[in-house]
């Protein structure tokens, strides 16, 4: 519990003096001015090991632990001003090389050279990290598509701002040219390995990512502008339909039409197979195998319950009057030496077509057993068709007993 209390006490102390701590980190390189009013605060911070001071005459510095914490909380701010931070850091490295590294090397001051070398290495890594994180944030915008802003017009504005930031960063990265780096490094092996090999490779990678992000941001902006334009159009039409019920645009006055109005619709019909093509006979035969449709109704019809109908009343099916008359005519003809005219009999039929009567008679005669068929003689009264001379129109059928029959 004691540990817990101590941690909570420390965090509360940081919270109580957060403004001063952040301000000293941002504006005074982590230095807290030693004033009378800060005295008790400095004492408390020292007790919690959040600040350090070499001796009473030196300034009070915020500890590295606290610096890292503040740094972490300021990541978004740092990203926004990344291009400035990158430029500052690069300028710092360049000064370090010119003011400390080269002089130390010239003087063969080994310890100073080791310290400066380590510092340059660390700053170079920090610079690479800074460039990397600055480019990464643009891909975050792309994946979110600025969806955190609900209004499409504001989203367009934000997109434009981000494109500007990306362009500025790209301009900055373009300044890290091979020539500039060569001048900075001279013939020094360590610097050439660090900047011409490691650093330039990482910068190039980040630049590629940034260009890709810029391209996608521009696409996104284009698509957002298109969406905004369509939204405007939709609102316009909605208002029009609200104000003018039954609004119907027309193009009667036009003599030329834009291409999207000239859509031809369907202009192709299904073709028929050329069945006379002998080369395709085998293929057609295969295709025809499965073309016959089995009616689904037959397949799916429910089983029919068979009822016992033996107990039910007989159903009498009445014979068709035409067939009855035809049979009667034939029966009469079998014992008549005179022709009986179908036309005469037709007069006794009511509501029947003459053609139907003639067909029924002929069909009945044709259906007779051969002996009965031989017992009658059939004569047709016909006339030649006016248009087709080989065809005859039947006017009447006459039937009488066949005198030559053996029956």
């Amino acid at each position, binding site marked *: 519990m004691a540990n817990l209390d101590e941690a909570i006490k420390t965090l509360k102390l940081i919270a109580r003096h957060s403004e001063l701590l952040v301000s000293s980190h941002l504006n005074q390189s982590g230095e807290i001015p030693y004033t009378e009013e800060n005295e008790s605060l400095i004492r408390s911070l020292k007790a919690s090991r959040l600040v350090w001071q070499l001796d009473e005459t030196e300034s009070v510095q915020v500890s590295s632990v606290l610096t890292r914490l503040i740094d972490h909380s300021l990541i978004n701010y740092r990203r926004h001003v990344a291009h400035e931070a990158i430029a500052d850091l690069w300028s710092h490295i360049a000064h370090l090389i010119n003011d400390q590294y080269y002089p130390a090397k010239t003087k063969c001051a080994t310890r100073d050279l080791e310290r400066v070398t380590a510092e340059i290495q660390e700053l170079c890594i920090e610079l690479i990290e800074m460039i990397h994180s600055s480019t990464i944030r643009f891909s975050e915008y792309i994946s979110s*598509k600025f*969806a955190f802003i*609900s*209004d*499409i017009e504001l989203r367009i504005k934000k997109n434009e701002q981000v494109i500007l930031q990306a362009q500025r960063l790209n301009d900055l990265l373009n300044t890290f040219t091979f020539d500039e780096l060569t001048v900075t490094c001279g013939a020094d092996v360590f610097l050439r390995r660090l900047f011409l090999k490691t650093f330039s490779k990482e910068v190039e990678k980040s630049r590629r990512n940034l260009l890709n992000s810029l391209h996608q941001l521009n696409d996104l902006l284009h*698509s*957002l502008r*298109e*969406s905004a334009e*369509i*939204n405007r*159009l*939709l*609102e*316009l*039409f*909605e*208002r*029009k*339909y609200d*104000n003018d019920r039954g*609004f*119907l*645009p*027309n*193009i*009667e006055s*036009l003599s*030329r*039409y*834009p*291409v*999207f*109005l*000239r*859509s*031809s*619709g*369907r*202009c*192709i019909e299904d073709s028929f197979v050329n069945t006379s093509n002998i080369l395709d006979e085998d293929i057609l035969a295969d295709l025809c195998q499965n073309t016959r449709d089995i009616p689904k109704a037959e397949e799916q019809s429910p089983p029919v319950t068979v009822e016992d109908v033996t107990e039910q009343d007989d159903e009498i099916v009445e014979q068709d009057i035409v067939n009855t008359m035809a049979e009667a005519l034939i029966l009469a003809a079998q014992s008549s030496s005179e022709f009986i005219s179908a036309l005469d009999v037709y007069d006794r039929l009511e509501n029947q077509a003459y053609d139907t009567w003639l067909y029924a008679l002929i069909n009945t005669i044709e259906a007779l057993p051969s002996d009965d068929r031989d017992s009658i003689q059939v004569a047709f009264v016909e006339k030649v068709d006016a248009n087709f001379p080989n065809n005859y129109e039947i006017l009447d059928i006459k039937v009488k007993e066949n005198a030559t029959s053996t029956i």
Partner: protein
Amino acid sequence: MSSYDPMFSSTLQALMSGGFICEVSNEKFYSYLSNSLVQDRVNQYLLQIDRELAQTSDEKAFFCAYSDAQSDAVQRTIRTQFKEVSNHLESFVRWIRLIVSINPAGVPIAAGEPLNKSTILGSIEQTPSHFEALKQLARTSYFKSNASDASGLVKAVLSKLVDAGYLVPVGRGGTQYQATAKWSWLYDVMAFIESHECLSEETENLHQPDMIDG
């Protein structure tokens, strides 16, 4: 003698069937038609039958268009088609506005955009005004639905849009759809109507304060 080219044949038949070819409706044909050499070849064929290969203004869809609209018969066809679109345009406008208000990103339906039936339904069931708008929309002569519940209404609207080539179902669940580039064509037509009917000027005039004041 030129030989039979299955890809050319299938693509042309799809075009001549009155379809809009885009990445969503038919990725294979769209990619084939994106080649300028193929476009020339297709045009050479189509020009012989008074047709040409056309694209929407955003170049997201290909379709077959009359190359010369001077004959009376073609003009009659064009006017009939335009009347058909005009008659149902209000239904489309109301539907897209409904989707825009449901969509948290506030963007209109565009080629490639996914449409989820459950998302639409969820929003409509939660917002009475959306449900009311949908009911009115579904009763229009274009959608013609007699369904009484939100699910039936949404289903009817989506099915109609699939039949008309504006949406393509994704998967077999019947809940996921993707918009085709036929919307691009509709937006082109709307932009044309806006300028032809001077709708913007009309609206500006409506919003102008009365300048003639005694």
